[in-house]
């Protein structure tokens, strides 16, 4: 696996993504999702859709933050958490 140039930070990142997917699968088995319409425009979404939108939005929040600010990326991470939770809960 040396050629993949793993670092502890990227390992934690991917473990986080894997953990989200595993939790989502268990949640789906325990209580299947039902499409609903939240604050996201136009579309009704399932739980999986909202996780995807939350993750994709978080990636863009990080990129936008890195483009306009010199401050710590942890601020972007905080904003992303708020965004992700909001999309899952009310999206």
């Amino acid at each position, binding site marked *: 696996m*040396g*050629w*993949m*140039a*793993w*670092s502890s*930070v*990227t390992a934690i*990142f*991917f473990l986080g993504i894997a953990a989200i997917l595993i939790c989502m699968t268990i949640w789906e*088995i325990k209580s*299947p999702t*039902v499409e609903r319409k939240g604050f996201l425009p*136009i*579309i009704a979404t399932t739980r999986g859709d909202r996780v*995807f939108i939350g993750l*994709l939005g978080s*990636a*863009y929040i990080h*990129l936008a933050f*890195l*483009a306009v600010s*010199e401050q710590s*990326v942890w601020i972007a991470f905080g904003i992303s958490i708020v965004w992700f939770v909001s999309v899952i809960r009310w999206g």
Partner: protein
Amino acid sequence: MNLKVKNNKAWFLVLPVLLIVAFSAVVPLMTVVNYSVQDIFDQNSAVFVGTEWYRELLNDPRLQDSLVRQFTFSSAVLLIEIPLGILVALMMPTKGKMASLCLVVLAMPLLIPWNVVGTIWQIFGRADIGLMGAFLNGIGIDYNYAANPVDAWFTVLLMDVWHWTSLVALLCYSGLRSIPDAYYQAAKIDRASAWSVFRYIQLPKLQSVLVIAVLLRFMDSFMIYAEPFVLTGGGPGNSTTFLSQTLTKMAIGQFDLGPAAAFSLIYFLIVLLVSWLFFTTITHLDNKR
């Protein structure tokens, strides 16, 4: 209503695909993410640099300029190829030998490899030996795609239109053929004009096909590499250097694997977002029906 699934064994059938995707897509993607946060010197020496490459790239005029050029190119491609493809499909014969002939002729540009298309147009546009270049210069137009950015853009766009309008036309043609005759008969009874038939029957029926055509053409034009690389080499200057060429220069030309990996991920995120928007549009349109 009980939504609980009682038997999940069918999921095992997906396992082979999952494994193939893991090795062909997920593992390389993970490697790119790993590279994007490190300064890679060789296989055994890498230094963690965090988000440095991302900060550097997002403020790099080369990336910004390429991105603007790429969006301009993809938008121009869509604005030309979609209406032209619809027009060609509308004008194509529907029955007989001519219909088959048209289909074969239209399919021909799609069979030519990208780099060969670039070579064809490179020769075709030359002022000394190329049919188009010599003709344009012969009628007094100072045309030189190797020296003039406007000419270079014109040639790259024309080349893409020549190569890919057929795809849009063929998709639209299949969409038009699936409209039942009853619709046209009803329009005839109502004495609908040709425009009304197009506006209220053909265009709505083409909607889903057009979304696929737009998606395919956007994705493909957004990732264009071989054709402009062979035709203009990204020049004159950087005027036809699109995103994939900038990326290749960075990764292979300069061996900057860290910044190139960060660039790839930004590129990937743009493609992912646009694909998702198109996918959502398609499913939303299907649900509305």
